[in-house]
């Protein structure tokens, strides 16, 4: 197996206005590993995932994702990644199926109904395929965003709070999705507050605090050694 890291970052910094959201973060993620990104609200988890996925630019530092530099080979990186963001990236006026069809056409995949319905079935939205997203609950939107992420079949997947807004069956859906991505050899970086669940599912863990990388190591050690008080964070049921 290729030992070149799937994601490597060097001195990544990003600021919003005068506040630094990410300060000198360096990391290395081996291929086909699932990494949990933990930290309190505002610690820089989402910013890190957005910088690595080229959704926003780093003010300093750089990274290589799937072998390509995020600053100089943005399009090459984008061809190999998928981002499940806080924003659903969905068109509210379109139906669930139409949203997937839009993505499929841009990816030059089969946009036919019968090709995309299995994906909607997988996320539990097959019976709402023709309903406009505007009629969906927050959890249903998250499920559709997950389907959109799956459709991309990316080599590196960034999941920002994938459990957010989901019900218990939704939690199990994300667990299955992670398992499927792992078996496919996909590298996953997942930001979550669910320490127990994340540490059980992920291989590695990193903890961010005020934009700085505070801890990194095996995910199973994160709740006890990551410097985060698990009791102060929400834990999955």
């Amino acid at each position, binding site marked *: 197996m290729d030992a070149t890291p799937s994601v490597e970052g060097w001195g990544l910094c990003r600021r919003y206005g005068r506040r630094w959201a990410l300060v000198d973060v360096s990391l290395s993620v081996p291929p086909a590993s699932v990494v949990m990104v933990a930290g309190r609200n505002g610690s820089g988890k989402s910013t890190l995932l957005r910088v690595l*996925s080229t959704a926003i630019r780093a003010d300093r530092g750089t990274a290589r994702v799937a072998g390509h530099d995020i600053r100089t080979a943005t399009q090459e990186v*984008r061809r190999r990644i998928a981002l499940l*963001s806080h924003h659903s990236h*969905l068109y509210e*006026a379109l139906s669930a199926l139409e949203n997937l069809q*839009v993505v499929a056409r*841009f*990816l030059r995949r089969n946009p036919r109904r019968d090709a995309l319905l299995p994906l909607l079935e997988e996320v539990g939205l097959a019976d709402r395929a023709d309903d406009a997203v505007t009629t969906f609950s927050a959890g249903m939107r998250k499920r559709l965003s997950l389907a959109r992420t799956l459709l991309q079949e990316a080599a590196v997947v960034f999941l920002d709070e994938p459990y957010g807004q989901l019900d218990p069956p939704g939690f199990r859906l994300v667990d299955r999705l992670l398992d499927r991505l792992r078996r496919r050899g996909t590298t996953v970086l997942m930001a979550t507050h669910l320490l127990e669940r994340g540490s059980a599912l992920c291989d590695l863990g990193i903890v961010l605090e005020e934009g700085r990388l505070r801890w990194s190591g095996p995910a199973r050690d994160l709740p006890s050694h990551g410097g985060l008080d698990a009791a102060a964070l929400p834990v999955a049921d």
Partner: protein
Amino acid sequence: MIVAALRKDFLLQWRTRAQVAAIFVFGATALLLFSFAIGPNAEALRQHAAGFLWLALLLSSTLTLAESFQSEMEQHALEGLLLLPADARALYYGKALSNWAQLALLGVALVPIMVVLYDAGSMNVAALVGIILLGSAGLSAPGTLYAAMTSQARSKQTLLPLLLFPLVVPVLLSAVKATSLLILGDPMDQVRSWSLLLVCFDLIHWSLCGLLFGRVVED
């Protein structure tokens, strides 16, 4: 990829067609109010018909253009497409073409209202449709770029006209002059020259704005 972008934009327009109808009513109301300003002078109405048609279309265009990016920004759908990665130029041309189609249809739909309100009945309809196509292309190309630029600004309703209106003055002047010649008569055959000038403005706007769009929508 332009085809995928165009399909997406036409689908979005179809789904929000109630807003398109509302913008048409806005344009028609503007034409009606402008006719009140002139009063019941048939000759004066005819002389001002072209100017007021394009003014109504320009004012309506700010609503159309701003609206076209509303759905892209609600859930950061445009960001999602850029990360696929969709080519920024394809996204621009898809959006600009669909805006052009909408503005051209709006312009054509306003013509009968102009004819009735401004007593501007005798003209070459095919030539007028051609001028509307060229003029609305000149509005939609820079308008789409500026709508993207202002879509995340807090005061976008003010910013878009502030940025767009000065830039489209040459397009507007050419379109008004050409339309006016069609309504009032064109003994010197000047419509052709004004149309050519519109084509030149369109070519400049469509090529430059397509190149700049990527820089506008990236972080």
